[in-house]
């Protein structure tokens, strides 16, 4: 707890839903007693399915919303109720990246204006010229060109817009960035670019990241620690490796086993979940997960389990009465398949990775190999091919 940058204790957020002149509104508890501690420099991922409360949690952590109860500390300063100047000051250190790069940028502002706006707020001492220079630097930092500052959001693709959003988040020089599904609206190839960019920026600037996401592969790739949410509560948390290799909550196990793996002929060892997440307006008695849990028994319908040590140490905790037993019963999908790719395919992947990383230059082959004798290549000898593009 010594160098935690953000602490949340027992955060709860209720919404009042419906109601009319004659009917009292109903209480919807979107987040129910969530505690988190984020260490400086780490990347924490919060994962869960739609409706689990992860976005409400994100909005509270960003202080776009206030918790109904519970407290939040940023660098040991209480922040859960601050407003006005104190909140503006907090925003300098804590910034956000949103999911949808199409709706989170004002279409009537130029990129320079969008990225310059937070600089204007947080560093009013800078002159317009200095600000423009800083915008240029920021754009370069996220892989755009300084001259893009004069263009408008509609002129950019989804991935480029997300880069603009990131530049905007970086503008005030924050210590912590919270991303709510920062890459889920992007296509795979562009998503990979943004994931790499976030990793580079984190290492370069020593940022702390909180990533809210539903894509487990992305989370496994990006995060150091993971918290799994279900129906407003954290059901399991731990280091990324522990969560993925040794999940202790049946929901985490089911979630992991439901992901389709992009490998041919890989058999899924599914822990099938029947039904869907219950409405948070009428959560089940006892354990939240008992309506879908294949291991549920009587005790699960009586008491709600608290997060407790899952037996593998290092802060790995799960909220399940029978975690030890279930972990033994359920063999999870970590059957590590041998790489089924052909040798040729492995060569091609290596060639691709080297070319992308700029580790090598590629040219059409000039020395014939045995394969080429079998399959004559008419174009490989053309002299113009020896020029390579990098």
């Amino acid at each position: 707890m010594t160098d935690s940058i953000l602490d949340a204790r027992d955060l709860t957020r209720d919404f009042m839903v419906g109601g009319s002149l004659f009917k009292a509104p109903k209480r919807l508890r979107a987040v129910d007693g969530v505690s988190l501690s984020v260490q400086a420099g780490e990347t924490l991922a919060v994962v869960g399915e739609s409706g689990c409360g992860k976005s409400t949690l994100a909005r509270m952590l960003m202080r776009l919303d206030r918790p109904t109860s519970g407290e939040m500390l940023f660098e040991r300063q209480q922040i859960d109720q601050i407003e006005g100047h104190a909140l503006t000051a907090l925003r300098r250190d804590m910034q956000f990246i949103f999911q949808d790069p199409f709706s989170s940028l004002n279409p009537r502002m130029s990129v320079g204006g969008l990225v310059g706006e937070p600089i204007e707020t947080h560093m009013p001492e800078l002159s317009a010229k200095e600000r423009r220079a800083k915008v240029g630097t920021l754009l370069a930092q996220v892989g755009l060109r300084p001259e893009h500052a004069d263009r408008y959001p509609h002129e950019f693709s989804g991935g480029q817009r997300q880069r603009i959003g990131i530049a905007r988040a970086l503008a005030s020089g924050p210590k912590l960035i919270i991303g709510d599904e920062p890459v889920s609206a992007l296509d795979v190839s562009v998503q990979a670019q943004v994931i790499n960019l976030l990793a580079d920026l984190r290492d370069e600037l020593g940022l702390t990241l909180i990533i809210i996401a539903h894509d487990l592969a992305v989370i496994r790739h990006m995060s150091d620690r993971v918290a799994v949410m279900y129906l407003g509560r954290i059901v399991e948390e731990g280091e990324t490796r522990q969560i993925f290799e040794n999940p202790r909550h049946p929901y985490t196990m089911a979630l992991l086993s439901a992901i389709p793996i992009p490998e041919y002929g890989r058999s899924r060892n599914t822990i099938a979940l029947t039904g869907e997440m219950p409405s948070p307006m009428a959560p089940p008695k006892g354990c939240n997960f008992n309506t879908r849990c294949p291991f549920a028994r009587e005790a699960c319908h009586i008491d709600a389990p608290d997060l407790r040590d899952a037996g593998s140490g290092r802060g790995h905790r799960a909220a399940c009465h029978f975690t030890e037993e279930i972990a033994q019963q359920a063999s999870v999908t970590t059957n590590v398949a041998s790489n089924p790719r052909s040798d040729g395919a492995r060569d091609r992947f290596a060639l691709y990775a080297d070319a992308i990383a700029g580790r090598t230059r590629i040219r059409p082959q000039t020395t014939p190999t045995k394969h080429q004798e079998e399959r004559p290549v008419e174009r490989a000898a053309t002299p113009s091919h020896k020029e390579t593009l990098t």
Partner: protein
Amino acid sequence: MTTLSTSGPLLDVRAISLRFGKSDTNLLQGVRYSVDAGETLCIVGESGCGKSVSSLAIMGLLPAGAVTIDEADVQFRGVPLDLHDTKAMRRFRGSDIAMIFQEPMSSLNPAFRIGNQIAEAVTAHNDVTEAEADARAIEMLRRVGIPAPEQRMREYPHQLSGGMRQRVMIAMALANDPALLIADEPTTALDVTIQAQILDLIRNLQRDSGMGTIMITHDLGVVAEIADKVAVMYAGIIVEAGPAERIFNDPQHPYTIGLMSSMPKMTGPSERLSTVPGTVPTIETMPKGCRFSTRCPFAQPICATPPSEQDFGQGHRVLCHFAPLNEKLERVQ
């Protein structure tokens, strides 16, 4: 509601090329694939690659006038489909060929009970009474795993969850026992645990009915799970196609390799991802020759000319000048 036994593929798309209006660049260029009865073809690609447009074209659902069809040689059960004949296409749609879409909420009419919407699909193509159509709707809801279908069919779309709505869409699509189901990103809007349920459902229904399925998706995980055959599309062109096993274990096209390298992995160490640099070209900036050349790390001067198709056997075909890459390219020391 008949299943003709024919030799040859159920749907044989021999060539589709089309353009938007008077644009001189083709939106789809020589798209070719086939599906057999009981088989699942996955068309995979990123947004804007033309994967949805090609299936909308087969369904005759492209807005007339907006696109110019240059070439459309499509056979369904050995009979040519005339994509211009809107009347004939309407007979096909929903009976022989059915389609489900990504977002069930916008595909269902919010003002009608779901039972009525399914029954409508039945009465549109069959001479049945209302009671018979309702009975069929109940039967279909039961088949797609909706509990208490008699009550559920009286509900409106907004009363159902996303997963349930997609089940209703599937019930509606399959109400007339289509020979071919086209599913356009059917699980993209759903959570993974619900996605797993829907994929299982589609697979089971397909096994029972022997229908052919075209699944359009951007998710290679879904492809690995259900595909028999795969077609990888990029910028309106099928750059690589073949049996699923070959595509995953022996991919040839740089784009296929780039797409697979871009995906964060669920096993092994988390290394830096190899991306596909840049973005998909727009119709105005479409390069001449190989359409992938602007993003390909291996591009050479010859890539300014269109590559010819290379056949690697078992229907595995690739559009690249340098396939196989590991034999035709070398590292410069």
